[in-house]
């Protein structure tokens, strides 16, 4: 039993998968700090509203200032670029983890805490533990396996754990939340023109609530699925998030991006290398090109369960 758990927790995956995942995650963070969590710089103008969270009180994070936030933002951009490129992977990765924690502590430290960044923040703390990982390094590694497993787990727990919050916050009832009018409440408050039409159709909002609730309960099943069934199941989440985004304007992108930890991302690197090889071949510069005929190592599908 314990052995089986350890094999699952440390199931080796190709290092190239981590290399590609790093590009995705660190690029996403750059986009995130300029669009989703871009309240950190404005927060510097109104520090009297700062109400630090536990980590903000116990760790020496700077008090919110405009200049401090601008410095932090550009330090994050630089460390994300270095970390995505794979140079000094541990140092740059830890720099991102610490800076992003400080950034998010400020963003969430004004008395409103959202939870859509949980998996992303956990990811920034596990990615540096893998160390060097090349884009074409198809050797499988337990360190890489653990890091991606933790990302997967944090992603799923974001959904699964919130079911407990929904039951606990509604008098320990299992059906009170999906039967309530929580989306009506949310959309009346948000008041975006895109979504207000839905207020006339409470059954639509209730259906969406049930859909979300059921998909959250089922989320944990992803670990018992294999191969194409697993990908199909995850696609269900992508479709659900796309639908709620189009209909209601709510996305959960910081969590959605972490779902990619389930996919054989190293194939992107192999594909890009092959394409690059073909382009170089065609332009006549074959010096260092990867020939399409070079036998590439098929990624080991450790998750296909034997």
């Amino acid at each position, binding site marked *: 039993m314990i052995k089986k758990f*350890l094999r699952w*927790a440390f199931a*080796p995956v190709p*290092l190239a998968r981590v290399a590609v995942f790093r590009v995705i995650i660190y690029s996403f963070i750059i986009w995130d700090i300029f669009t989703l969590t871009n*309240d950190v*710089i*404005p*927060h*510097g*103008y*109104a*520090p*009297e*509203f700062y*109400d630090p*969270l*536990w*980590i903000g009180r116990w760790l020496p994070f700077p008090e919110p200032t405009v200049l401090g936030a601008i410095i932090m933002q550009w330090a994050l951009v630089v460390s994300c670029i270095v970390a995505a490129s794979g140079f000094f992977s*541990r140092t740059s990765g830890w720099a991102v983890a610490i800076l992003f*924690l400080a950034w*998010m*502590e400020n963003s969430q430290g*004004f*008395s*409103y*805490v959202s*939870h*859509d960044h*949980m998996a992303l923040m*956990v990811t920034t703390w596990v990615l540096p*533990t893998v*160390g060097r990982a090349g884009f074409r390094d198809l*050797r*499988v*590694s*337990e*360190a890489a396996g*653990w890091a991606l497993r*933790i990302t997967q787990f944090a992603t799923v727990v974001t959904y699964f*754990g*919130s079911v*407990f*919050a*929904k039951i*606990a*916050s*509604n008098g320990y009832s299992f059906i*009170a*939340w*999906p039967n*309530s*009018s*929580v989306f*009506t*409440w949310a959309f*009346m*408050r948000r008041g975006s023109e895109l979504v207000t039409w839905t*207020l006339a159709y*409470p059954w639509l*909002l209730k259906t969406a609530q049930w859909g979300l609730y059921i998909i959250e309960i089922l989320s944990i099943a992803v670990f018992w699925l294999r191969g194409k069934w697993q990908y199909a199941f995850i696609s269900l989440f992508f479709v659900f998030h796309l639908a709620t985004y189009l209909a209601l304007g709510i996305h959960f992108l910081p969590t959605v991006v972490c779902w990619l930890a389930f996919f054989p991302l190293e194939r992107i690197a192999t594909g890009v290398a092959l394409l690059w090889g073909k382009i170089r071949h065609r332009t006549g510069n074959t010096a260092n090109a990867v020939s399409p005929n070079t036998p590439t190592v098929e990624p080991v599908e450790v998750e296909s369960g034997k």
Partner: protein
Amino acid sequence: MSENIPAQPQDPDRPLTLARHHKVTRLLATAIALTILTIAQINPTNDWFPLGSLSQYSYGRPLDSPTRAVRIMATTQTGDEIRVPLNQQGVGIGRAEIEGQLDRILADPSMLEGIARAWGGLHPHRPAFIELRLERTTSYVENGVPTGQVDVEELTTWTVQGTYGSGSGDAS
């Protein structure tokens, strides 16, 4: 790092294993994080961010309960009445961030000075705020459908003390 030195670098099927103590450290860290996260769900707290309660939108609302929201209205130095945009681009402070510390603000309305300062800093060429009114709106709902009736209640007011932004050029 030592644990990543492969036995046979050319053989991709041979996993790069982790030494036992590296595995123990990783499992311990995971166990601690998971314990914090679990306790935060049972005894909901946001204070343990990022491992706090996964509580966003977790409070179900009864089908007939009115929807309350807080807003800030401002009188600008040009005499206009505007609704302060409580978001990232507006004043940087979100509405939920005002609602989360309503008690603090009501106990010390001078905190609202920060809203005027942020507006001046972010929009230096727009007319500055000279007075702020914190209001609560209550929108009524019947069977899950808004009735359209909205009540407005004034919670507190604040006369801005400082001069912010360069919008003062066309004052009075």
